[in-house]
């Protein structure tokens, strides 16, 4: 099974029952993520990205279809998958190091060893010196980095992130994008990033999956053949612009439709 994709999503559909609005949030989606790959899923607001995220993470049951990691079907939260949620989710009563060490604490690791491991991930996300701070003393971008470090500390084979930077301002987003690139290059972390930012998707990904709006279907997959390691410089390269324009073309129709429907 070593050839099997790390993550395989096949014919996944999620319908909410009539009591919950009778809506098809995700419709017959299939794709795979290979080891070491960085894949983004992009789509307009409300197209079913978070729903897909929860299904892959094992927190929501798909109505139809199958998700498997390393050939193993997902029926609940799987140890190979680490999730970073769309909303901030640090534990406010824990300081940074104890937040990051949380998964290791659940696993029963001793204090000294889990702090040592946590320290490595705190350094990785650039929060050295803030170990003893509590989330309320950090900025939104720093808190989201704590969440990323906490998820990485569990050593997932697939890092699954749902718009981790959506609530942050533009500059912080760009800086965090750089951080994610750096993490990806250091850890060779297989990542599935859900986003609605085109530049973010192009900057970070090997492949971008575009979702359509209602029902949330796979519209197209675009391979991003930009050289790695990537730096902020690629943001101004002509190839980058071409990819962004191409994706925007795809998304424009969907986003317009979403906007029109939302306005009724």
């Amino acid at each position, binding site marked *: 099974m070593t050839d099997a994709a790390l993550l395989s999503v096949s014919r996944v559909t999620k319908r909410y029952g009539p009591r919950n609005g009778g809506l098809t949030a995700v419709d017959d989606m299939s794709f795979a993520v290979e080891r070491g790959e960085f894949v983004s899923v992009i789509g307009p607001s409300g197209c079913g990205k978070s729903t897909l995220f929860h299904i892959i993470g094992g*927190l929501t049951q798909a109505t139809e279809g199958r998700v498997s990691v390393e050939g193993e079907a997902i029926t609940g939260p799987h140890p190979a*998958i680490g999730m970073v949620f769309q*909303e901030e*989710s640090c534990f406010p009563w824990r300081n940074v190091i104890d937040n990051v060490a949380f998964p290791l604490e*659940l696993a029963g690791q001793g204090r000294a060893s889990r702090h040592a491991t946590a320290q490595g991930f705190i350094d990785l996300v650039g929060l050295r010196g803030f170990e003893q701070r509590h989330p309320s003393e950090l900025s939104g971008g720093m808190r989201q980095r704590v969440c990323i470090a906490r998820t990485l500390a569990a050593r997932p084979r697939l890092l699954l992130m749902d718009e981790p930077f959506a609530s942050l301002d533009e500059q912080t987003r760009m800086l965090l994008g750089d951080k994610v690139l750096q993490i990806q290059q250091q850890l060779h972390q297989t990542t599935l990033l859900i986003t609605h930012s085109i530049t973010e998707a192009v900057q970070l990904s090997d492949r971008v999956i575009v979702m359509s709006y209602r029902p949330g279907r796979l519209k197209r997959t675009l391979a991003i053949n930009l050289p790695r390691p990537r730096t902020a410089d690629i943001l101004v390269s002509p190839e980058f612009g071409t990819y962004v324009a191409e994706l925007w073309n795809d998304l424009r129709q969907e986003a317009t439709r979403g906007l029109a429907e939302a306005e009724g």
Partner: protein
Amino acid sequence: MSQTLLPRLVATILLLVAWQAMALSGLLFRDVVPPLQAIASGVGGVLGDSGFYANLAITGFELAVALVLGGAGGLIAGLALGGSRFLSQALERWLNYLGPTPKIILFPVLIMMFGVGAGSKMAMGAVSCFFPIAISVAAGVRGVDPKLLQVGRSLRAGRLQMLTKIYLPAMLAPLVNGARLGFGVALIGVLLAETKLSNQGVGFLIMQAYQRFDMPRMYGLLLVTVAFAAAVNIATDRLAIRLRGSRVRANK
């Protein structure tokens, strides 16, 4: 702090002056409003009486047992109600009806179940504090941020880990609040039970002083009891602030 000090001081002095004027005016039946010096000597008498301490110890013990039993019961019931939609729909209405009902109406039943001694007093206190603790724990469970629960689930935390590492720390505020409310009503329950049928405890001493029409001693007992309750309340407040503060304060 210093800003509230002056109004408080003024209010206290006015109250004392008014009381003293009332006592000296002779308008009310003698000794119902005893002059301040009589009350002071009543307080002194209470504090100098070794019998008082023995009875205080009894009341304190009854109260402690009541809090442990009622608190544990309330915590478990609150967690169950907060965690289960079914239980909450089936039972929470009753909890909300029974909560404000004066528990003293149950006293005859408790006497039959636990006897006329300390048992029925502890039961009164326990029943009293069960309700506010259960209600505030149930609300606390539902108030826990669902995102934090998802983090726990996605990291495959066990049931006990979810409870001790997420639910309980996330519920610190409602837990402390429930404990404070519970303490207040448990004290009321125990004292009330002691005044009804008892031969020991502070409640019993208060009734005894009343029946002997020893008003200075009665007021003395009341004042000491109020001071005790206030001291415990202040202590729980401080503890709550310390606990909350320890989250925010970094170990710099």
